[in-house]
């Protein structure tokens, strides 16, 4: 019974801290655990991907501006 108490406390804490206010379906603790477990890598990959896309966009804009300037200069 004593060893079960911390587990009950932790599970209770998880439910209190993470359950959405109006959830009516069982989100499944396995689905929650997996999201918590993968949160770091998901956030890192997403951030890197977003930054990469931004970098590509900026580079494309710079190249386009450079080419445009070159054409005007030639014209």
């Amino acid at each position, binding site marked *: 019974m004593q060893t079960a108490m*911390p*587990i009950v406390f*932790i*599970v209770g*804490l*998880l439910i209190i*801290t*993470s*359950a*959405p*206010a*109006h*959830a*009516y*379906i069982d*989100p*499944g*603790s*396995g*689905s*929650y*655990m*997996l*999201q*918590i*477990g*993968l*949160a*770091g890598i*998901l*956030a*890192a*990959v*997403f*951030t890197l*991907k977003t930054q990469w896309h931004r970098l590509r966009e900026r580079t494309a804009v710079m190249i386009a501006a450079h080419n445009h300037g070159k054409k005007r200069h030639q014209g």
Partner: protein
Amino acid sequence: MSVSVDPASFRDPSGFVFRRDGVLYRQVQPRYGRDYDLLLGSGLYDTLADSGLLVRHREVDASAAISPGAYRVLEPEPVPFISYPYEWCFSQLKDAALATLQIQKTALGRGLGLKDASAYNVQFVAGRPVFIDTLSFERYEEGAPWAAYGQFCRHFLAPLALMSRVDIRQGQLLRLYVDGIPLDLVARLLPGSSKLNPGLLAHIHLHGGAQKRCGDGEAQRRSAGRTVSRTAILGLLDSLEGTIRKLNWQPEGTEWADYYGHTNYTDAAMEDKRRLVGEMLDAVSPAPRAVWDLGANTGAFSRVAAERGADVVAWDVDPAAVERNYLECRKSGATRILPLVQDLTSPSPGLGWASEERRSLLQRGPADAVLALALVHHLAIGNNVPLPAVARFLQDAGKWLIVEFVPKSDSQVRRLLASRPDVFDGYTREGFEAAFEPHFETVRTADVAGSQRSLFLLRARPMAAHIEGRDSAPHFN
């Protein structure tokens, strides 16, 4: 005055759907008031409705409520035909999945999120997936995992992965598992190579394993106090979207996908049949608004009905034919045709709680008119269904019927009989007419030029005659 609560609308205490005098309403309960106001006040409703992703509604007087204390009563725009995920082809399920993820991403940007991600919350309207559950949105709590992640994977990713990586027919598992296919089962059915795909590894294999170990106190202890950032949720959605976009299916090698290439119709006969079907549709009065094309294949005759302004459900047993029809409709912008998978030898039954949550095929009818072209011989000879039983079923399905009789001398019927004994003595034109006579009044008959086939325009008799016919229905063989 008739009032009835939708039997599928009982899980979420935020509200429910009901019909009053045939009009659909959604009652919002006070407990959902805060989230409903946020949905509208944040601009999310307008954004999603303007982009066609969320069904529009108008608020009506609260006196329309069917129980006291309603927060609001909404009248959503009607959906012409309710279909279910186990009736969708691969690309329809994929489009519905991507629409759900797009909605969740957009919602997060406005401080809300989807609290459920059921595939049954999506319907196809004018050829596009539309989310129909206005009460699925809730305030996003910073740090909270996505409560609907498990449901999304069971309802969308799991069947798509099975259809793409194992067999298209495994989409039918959705009919067995009404809240989505269990992930541990999907993990067992997928080939081992699916673990090399990072998305399937995470969202199916690891996810299924995590669900199995959910009672593991050690795992919970290690995760205690940790939250999931908004960036991680966006990463999760991005990963799901990327995984789903890469799942594909090429409709090849199934039974009917090349049917029109293998028919015995000459171009002239096909054109004559198209003309006759059009004329018969024009003779239906009042003009049919809802048409079911049973055995539609890739929808050549569905288009004849759609051109006349009808909303057509193009049913076919072959997922390849339905896939081709859907992709063609999507490409051409055809908004009046809804291609769906249906095995008429075992039509969609009532499913879910009390067998009432998901309605059977016939409960969603009758259609104003039914097309049954090049179909009856498949049911009567291919599946041994007696002709009177075919007639009875078609009478239940529609008020008017355009049906084709294909005689035994036709090469398509000969093909069906090639590898089996002919036990179908009653399968003659006379037997056909005698079987349909108790259920339908014949309005017009016509032979298709350049073929041995005939078309019949029939009007269903009133139900009393139909019930009498049912009790005394003889078997022809």
